[in-house]
């Protein structure tokens, strides 16, 4: 008895959940200074009995590290799940929010709201900017590559959208008369989770939850779609409606995620491929596990960032690209006959 796919299906869930908990635990341990976590948490739970140092440790844990780890889980989940959805919807294994330009366009939207001062107007302005940016990019992808489009069309459309979005990010930052422009261009294009607060998490989380909930509920359609659009229609799905739902949900969740983290590459592309064989190549089943996988991968990336550079501020997107880039090359190598 080797590992049959059924065996793996049973094993994969507990394994992923254990990894998720483990990496979360490791991630909150790491930072520029050593914090005895047990003491800090007991201080927090006993609502303030302890030394002043404990108070500072509790604050570091609750206001700096917890938001960072929570965001890694949430953003990773969104990117993984959105990647699986886009790959299912476009029936194209190279579709991922980063590669087709959704994340960069979302970053552009967030940049515009932040740097032109609109972010302070209403609490949801920043995620809304990201969502609008993401919506525009998804529309562009459909216009340029279409649902029936070839892999090559999709990739080229993605290259173009990415190039335009990243240059507009740089342009917007220069126009905003901002002495930190260079620094912040790097932030938005490479992504980072550091120095975020629980308020930031609270602002974007609702949009992520709604978006992800819609995506997860569309699993049956994606399964049907894998048999072809006609079959899906015969099975009673309204393709236009379903597509609109998925596209809006991707834009909503990814837009909100990117507005807080910048564009973190390759998670959405890589993760679904890792799990596809383990769920019998069923796009519907792939959604949830890809989300969890995304969380685990992003936590791992953040752990690497904390370990490699304490003060050098290595951006998270650098690590995900270091892993994702070679994976992408390998995929192209494997698919080179199909692409032509």
């Amino acid at each position, binding site marked *: 008895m080797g590992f049959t796919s059924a065996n793996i299906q049973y094993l994969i869930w507990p394994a992923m959940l254990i990894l998720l908990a483990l990496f979360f635990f490791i991630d909150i341990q790491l*930072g520029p*200074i050593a914090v005895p976590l047990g003491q800090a948490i007991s201080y927090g739970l006993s609502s303030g009995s302890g030394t002043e140092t404990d108070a500072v440790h509790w604050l570091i844990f609750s206001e*700096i590290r917890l938001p960072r780890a929570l965001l890694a889980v949430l953003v990773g989940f969104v990117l993984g799940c959105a990647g699986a959805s886009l790959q299912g919807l476009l029936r194209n294994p190279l579709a991922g929010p980063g590669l087709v330009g959704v994340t960069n366009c979302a970053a552009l939207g967030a940049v515009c709201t*932040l740097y032109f*001062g609109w972010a302070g107007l209403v609490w949801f302005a920043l995620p809304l900017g990201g969502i609008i940016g993401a919506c525009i990019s998804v529309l562009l992808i459909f216009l340029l590559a279409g649902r029936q489009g070839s892999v090559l069309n999709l990739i080229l459309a993605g290259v173009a959208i990415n190039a335009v979005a990243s240059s507009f990010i740089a342009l917007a930052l220069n126009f*905003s008369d*901002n002495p*930190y422009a260079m620094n912040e261009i790097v932030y938005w294009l490479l992504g980072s989770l550091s*120095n975020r*607060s629980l308020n930031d998490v609270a602002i974007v989380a609702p949009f992520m939850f709604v978006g992800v909930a819609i995506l997860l509920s569309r699993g049956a359609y994606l399964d049907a779609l894998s048999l072809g659009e006609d079959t899906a229609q015969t099975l009673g799905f309204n393709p236009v409606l379903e597509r609109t739902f998925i596209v809006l949900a991707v834009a909503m969740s990814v837009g909100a995620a990117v507005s807080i983290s910048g564009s973190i590459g390759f998670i959405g592309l890589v993760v679904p491929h890792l799990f596809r064989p383990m769920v019998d190549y069923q796009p519907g089943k792939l959604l949830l596990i890809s989300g969890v996988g995304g969380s685990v991968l992003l936590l791992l990336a953040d752990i690497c960032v904390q370990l490699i550079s304490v003060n050098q501020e290595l951006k998270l997107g650098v690590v995900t690209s270091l892993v994702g880039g070679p994976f992408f090359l390998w995929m192209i190598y494997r698919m080179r006959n199909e692409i032509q």
Partner: protein
Amino acid sequence: MSVFNLKQVIVLITCLLCFPFSSLAAAKKTDDALKVASINLCADQFLMLLADKKNIVALSDLAADKEYSYLWQRAVGIPLTHGDAEQLLPLKPELIVAGRYDDIHKVHLLRAFGYNVEIIPLVENLAQVTATLEHIAMLIGEEDKGLALIQDLNKRIQLATSHLQNDSSNAAKKPVAVIYAANGFTHAAGTIHDDLIRLAGFENGATQLGMTGHGNLSLEQLLMIQPDVLIMEDSSNNKNSNAQVFLQHPALTRGLPNTQVVNIPANLWMCGGPSSVDVLEHLRLIYQDFQVKGHK
């Protein structure tokens, strides 16, 4: 009305009559004072203090920006350039001063055009302020003015640091100060900022952590230091950036209950130079204020 007109006419006529002579006189006078241009914000500050306005043919583009340039009001009416040879060529400077970290290609290009480009070393401590002042005064032929300025600065420095001789017994436990700007940017050992903090009677918390030079201090590190005084660089614009939003992080606003937060305008800090003495005086006042409040 007519009186004004008459006056204006007289002035105009006088000017026209005197023009050939005055330009001659100016030419004679510039024998010792050079026509000088600066392509660096920090060199700008020295020139605006030392040189006659009519002898400054160009300043850097930041010289008139009050966010960065302490003497921005004096830059009004002087041509501003980005340090490009094309812009400087028609202004015919006899000497160009540049900073240590200016684009070396620009400097090479200007030198290739035959310009005399002098690179001003970085000011890394208070002693170098007067040394640099003397050096530039000599370069542009304003030694007397330079000497007067240096005497004045030395008097102020002596006044602000007189405590160093008096209360050496206090050295046992000095209050800790940390400079904190957008993105957590701070200044540690080997910078003039660090020098000024120590001269005012504080310890620099970033230096105590082993940091050197300019760099970023993470929120976590700042919380662990729990400085007595947090010195923010006051900058009124550019609120709409990640870098500034960083300073409103709840951990920063809630995590330093015993810290006194003070502001020193960013344009005073920007360059090591004569304005550094102003910073020293600010810091000294903050120190005295802290001593009063801290030992209640």
